[in-house]
């Protein structure tokens, strides 16, 4: 390769630095140039969660992997001057389809996204998608659960996390279906706008399975409901 785009990356960084020096905020040192994630060095792609069900932990970086079947949004901010405003992000492959203003991952693998301005590519970025191989359930303290004991009347908040086959957390908004074997023993209710989160309410003594399913992955949680709480039993004992 004789020509590469590293000169453009350096040029774009220099432009950012110069812009920062001219913005009237002299001496503040507020502008901290960072490495642009566009592969041509002409700007930054920004990953956007479309709703609370996205398990993306660090919105300041592009995700390591997005779940197959998940929805997401991607924005682009150009670091180079454009003749007119308006850069839109487009899928460059059949791996990702467009649904209105959001994208949906259809296939696992590495895929390219393009920032396009008036029919011309401004920059591009590659992302990775992986199937959801596992889903785990954790409590509000972050402890992963496979079983749970509740007393009648007790309420527990749980949330599901989508993982790939190497137990890495996957980004992207997914649909989660929570079910209980017996709602008269343990009732499952949504907890706000995040479909990953639910509230379990223990109504009667017994043993039930609570399941959460996303895509092809299912996790089963055994819930034992006691007549009275373990603390109460200890006090009585």
């Amino acid at each position, binding site marked *: 390769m004789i020509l*590469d*785009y590293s000169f453009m990356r350096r040029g774009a960084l220099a432009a950012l630095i110069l812009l920062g020096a001219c913005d009237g905020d002299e001496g503040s040192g507020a502008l901290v140039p960072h490495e642009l994630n566009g592969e041509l060095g002409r700007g930054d792609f920004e990953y956007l969660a479309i709703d609370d069900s996205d398990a993306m932990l660090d919105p300041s970086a592009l995700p390591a992997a997005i779940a197959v079947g998940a929805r997401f949004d991607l924005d682009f901010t150009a670091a180079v001057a454009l003749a007119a405003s308006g850069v839109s992000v487009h899928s460059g*492959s059949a*791996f990702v389809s467009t649904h209105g203003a959001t994208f949906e991952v259809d296939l696992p693998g590495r895929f*390219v996204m393009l920032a396009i*301005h*008036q029919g*011309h590519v401004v920059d591009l970025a*590659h992302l990775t998608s992986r199937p959801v191989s596992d889903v785990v359930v954790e409590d509000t303290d972050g402890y992963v659960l496979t079983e749970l004991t509740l007393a009648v009347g007790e309420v527990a908040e749980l949330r599901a996390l989508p993982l790939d086959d190497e137990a890495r957390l996957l980004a992207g908004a997914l649909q989660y279906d929570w079910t209980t074997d017996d709602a008269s023993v343990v009732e499952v209710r949504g907890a706000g706008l995040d479909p990953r989160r639910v509230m379990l309410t223990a109504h009667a003594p017994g043993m039930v399975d609570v399941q959460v399913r996303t895509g092809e992955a299912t996790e089963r949680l055994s819930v034992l409901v006691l007549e009275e709480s373990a603390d109460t039993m200890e006090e009585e004992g």
Partner: protein
Amino acid sequence: MKSLTRALLIATACLAPACKPELARLDLRVVSDPEVDAYADGTEVVLPAGNGLVVEVRPISDRARDIDPDARIDLLTNEPSVTRVFPVLGEPGHFAITGVRAGVGELDVLLENELEGQIEVRVLEP
């Protein structure tokens, strides 16, 4: 004298087309870092499905010299379900080529809006 003038005119007419450099081949180079096994030369581009790369296209004349460096080059896909191509903003002769899905497609090469040839794009299973 009249016959001499006529001969000169005929000779000039014959030489004029020969002075225009004809496209002999394309020089195609990958100028982005696709981070995957990808390949490009004047006749074909090979890349895995889902991925994209940026190439610089230079037409080479049959006289071993470049055609007018300002000549307009366009690439157009014949098979958008297999491969797509976009010009790169502000970089004439640079194009982003993407592998939409596995298969074989072709890019028409237009020089000054005239079809000059084709580049095969082989998009491999990822």
